């Protein structure tokens, strides 16, 4: 942090306002207005636009909008429970798979692997983060879904005939497919952030353990992980936030049917994908408004997730550190 080490505090450096300081004041005003305030205005615009557009639906349905298990535009009945269910369950499946894998990768990169290997894996994971959602969806539709339908799902259905989790015909598309695609997408997020969090753990933490004769794993599990705990939790929450709002890849593989079913193989629908699929087809105001309200709910949940997660990460790594790839 150059800021903290600076011998002259920046505040003392501010030019005195007056004729000579005028250009400086003007420059600062420009940067503030066109930069900082524009970003702030953008956030304000997002909230205002969503609330304004969804007001019709908000006033028509009230809180029951979130609890009704019916989505029938023809009869003008709108309830989002199936979408909430699909979003939450697919995200949880993703989290269940991605969390141990990602934390494992991060620990491996930072604590175990030789530097060249750690860097190489880092690079590849960052590239995985750069692959657009729609391309993963394309692979999901034509490669992963047929494989699930022909091989994986029949295997489970045959072996566990009475387990509700594996009931029904193997569609291929469904909660499991959605969860798997999401898991692939959030691994890079969690790896990048938890890696950076662990890199901020002071080296003395490890050295103290090694001096006591600890093995590599003991040093990691007793001195590094506890130190980084809240930051790692933040990393996982950022992954969850991404999974909840992810649209294209999920839309392409989850089956897009507003059902609530215990079976992992049953087609489902998420909040983001109902917006993606139906927004341009929404023919009357209430329909559009209902979809925007789904978006508003999604926005609020992901913002809350992100806010808490950032605070957790900052509590370990500090706010000025660049944590995580883009």
């Amino acid at each position, binding site marked *: 942090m150059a800021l903290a080490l600076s011998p002259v505090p920046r505040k003392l450096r501010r030019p005195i306002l007056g004729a000579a300081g005028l250009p400086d004041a003007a420059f600062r005003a420009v940067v503030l207005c066109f930069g900082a305030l524009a970003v702030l205005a953008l956030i304000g615009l997002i909230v205002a636009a*969503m609330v304004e557009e969804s007001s019709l639906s908000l006033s028509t349905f009230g809180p029951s909008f979130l609890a009704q298990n019916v989505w029938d535009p023809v009869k003008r009945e709108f309830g989002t429970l199936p979408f909430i269910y699909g979003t939450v369950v697919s995200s949880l499946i993703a989290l269940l798979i991605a969390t141990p894998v990602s934390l494992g990768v991060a620990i491996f990169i930072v604590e175990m692997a030789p530097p060249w290997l750690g860097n190489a894996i880092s690079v590849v994971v960052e590239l995985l983060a750069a692959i657009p959602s729609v391309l993963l969806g394309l692979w999901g539709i034509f490669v992963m879904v047929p494989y699930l339908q022909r091989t994986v799902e029949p295997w489970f259905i045959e072996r566990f005939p009475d387990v509700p989790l594996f009931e029904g015909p193997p569609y291929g598309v469904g909660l499991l497919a959605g969860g798997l695609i999401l898991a692939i997408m959030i*691994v890079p997020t969690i790896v990048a952030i938890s890696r950076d969090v662990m890199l901020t753990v002071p080296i003395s933490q490890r050295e103290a353990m090694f001096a006591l004769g600890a093995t*590599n794993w003991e040093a990691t599990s007793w001195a590094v992980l506890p130190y980084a705990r809240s930051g790692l939790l933040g990393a996982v929450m950022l992954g969850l936030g991404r999974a909840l709002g992810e649209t294209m890849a999920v839309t392409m593989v989850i089956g897009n049917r507003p059902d609530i079913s215990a079976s992992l193989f049953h087609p489902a629908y998420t909040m983001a994908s109902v917006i993606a699929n139906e*927004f341009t087809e929404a023919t009357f105001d209430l329909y559009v408004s209902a979809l925007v309200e789904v*978006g508003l709910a999604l926005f609020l949940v992901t913002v809350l997730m992100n806010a808490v997660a950032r605070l957790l990460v900052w509590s370990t790594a500090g706010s*000025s550190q660049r944590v995580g790839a883009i």
Partner: protein
Amino acid sequence: MALALKAGLSTTRRQVINRVMGALLCLAAAIALTPLVLVIGFILANGAAGLSLDLLTKLPRPVGEVGGGMANAFLGTAILIALASAIGVPVGVLAGIYLSEFGDNWFAAALRFLTDVLTGVPSIVIGIVAYTLLVIPLRSFSALAGGVALAMLMIPVVTRTTEEALKRVPESLREAALGLGVAEWKTILFVVVPSGLGGIVTGVMLAIARISGETAPLLFTAFGSRYWQDGLMKPIAAVPLQIFQYAVAPYKDWHNQAWAAAFILMLLILGLNVGVRVATHSGFQRVQ
């Protein structure tokens, strides 16, 4: 010894646990890399098969007819990126300058936090916002709305990377300039920003790489089109949008075109990612 007592385990046992955990973590890395290899592999293989010059030079044929390309979509993506950059880069860079150079107060701290949170807003939500702000008042899907939606996604990324880049500029440079009597605004514009330019450019290029594959915010802003572009107030085609529409349609020929377009898009995005980091020497984040 102290640890052995605490764990209640023999040294051999502890060594074995260490080895096993090492192997498990290595396995985790292998599991995480597998999908990347699979996705890239399939896109390369299936995409190369469908690749043809028509894809880049011809318009889409009417629905159901075989052949044609998506030249308009490639042009459309270029137009959308240009529009988004024209709006997003100045705002993002100025906000980044503010955070780095005037950012030691509570307002900047709040702004920094909000910018980070903004990065996590689902892109489909950004699409709704652009729809509300531009599509409804103008009564038409448009290139403009698509560009604005992408700009909104770009701004937080550019802001934070600019801030990072400028913060890496040594404080002594600023003090040297100020000590010579150079005004603060000149110091920032002609000393600090040029020194951090490499990092800013990296951030901008990575932001472009990110938005060039975005689909969700374009669904109901840019909307897509099967013709050449006719002004910024008309719907516009985009490569990721076209890939999505072709992938979920029932035509074999469209699937092949989707794979081929995915091939080109992926090479562009990965190429941009690798190229920019190598060119500016900023590199990927280093472990050691």
